[in-house]
């Protein structure tokens, strides 16, 4: 029994260590705020450990991302309500919720930025801006299927929908991204 506990703990540690950085970036892309993203990832880790640690390991990725997506949506809902309340009372939206400046986010097409690292950072900024413009479900499908690399079945489990819906959302997302990224990346 003790051996099983140690195995579970070690396996969960390996799984979480392998997934935590990508999960954080996915949450950050969706929430546009590092603190909220860290909170969402932490909640997902805790819930996975609390509820599903005894489940087979191959079920962990979709379960983890399902919890994470749920936390992301909760955060977005809270943020929307808060913004509505603030706008009702004449308050200002928080700077963190402001949409990114497209001029600031756009890469320097003249190629004045030196180095591959800077180019990658600029490419990521363009991708972030393009992802931000997608509807929520399309963004989820793209991030889980393409960025995280889950297969269609696990993506469907993570999103809580059918595989057909995943393919539809993904197809539309890729179509939209082709429009917005094509001119920069083609």
């Amino acid at each position: 029994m003790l051996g099983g506990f140690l195995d579970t703990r070690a396996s969960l540690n390996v799984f979480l260590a392998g997934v935590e950085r990508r999960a954080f970036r996915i949450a950050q892309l969706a929430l546009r705020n590092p603190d909220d993203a860290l909170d969402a990832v932490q909640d997902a880790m805790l819930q996975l450990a609390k509820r599903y640690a005894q489940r087979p390991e191959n079920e962990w990725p979709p379960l983890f991302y399902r919890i994470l997506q749920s936390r992301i949506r909760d955060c977005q809902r809270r943020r929307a309500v808060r913004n509505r309340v603030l706008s009702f009372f004449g308050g200002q939206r928080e700077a963190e919720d402001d949409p990114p400046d497209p001029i600031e986010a756009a890469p320097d097409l003249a190629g004045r930025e030196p180095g591959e690292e800077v180019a990658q950072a600029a490419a990521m900024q363009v991708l972030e801006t393009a992802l931000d413009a997608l509807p929520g479900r399309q963004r989820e499908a793209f991030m889980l299927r393409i960025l995280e690399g889950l297969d269609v079945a696990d993506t469907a489990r993570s999103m809580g929908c059918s595989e057909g819906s995943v393919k539809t959302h993904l197809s539309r997302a890729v179509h939209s991204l082709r429009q917005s990224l094509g001119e920069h990346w083609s």
Partner: protein
Amino acid sequence: MNDANENLMLEKARAAFLESVATLDAGTLAGLRAARERALEEVRTQTAFWRRPAWSLPLSAAAIVLAAVVAGVVWWNLDSQPGVPFATNNGEDMAIVLSNDNLDMYADMDFYRWLQAQQQQSPGAPTTQTDSGGNNNG
């Protein structure tokens, strides 16, 4: 954009994403590590109950059964005494124990003994319950 270009775009998107993952700052990595440790601690806490020795389970069950039997026997004995409700009887006992008058009576016990002796020596004599006269003779 044809399929090849589309695949190229997707590969480039994933490469940019992974690059951004690889260049996360130290503060974020520390936060993620701490979050993971908390999650693993949750596993440890949850499984602590199940890590008890195997012999402790029947022992616990036996203790529970024994406690239930003792409680049943005590209850049966209390219930089998007719006419004296436990709560009332217990309340009267507590009143006696807590009464200040009774403590005074024990303090004046010598006086009551003297008063009784006086009554036995002269049965016709009137008796008084006053403390003042009696204490002076004691």
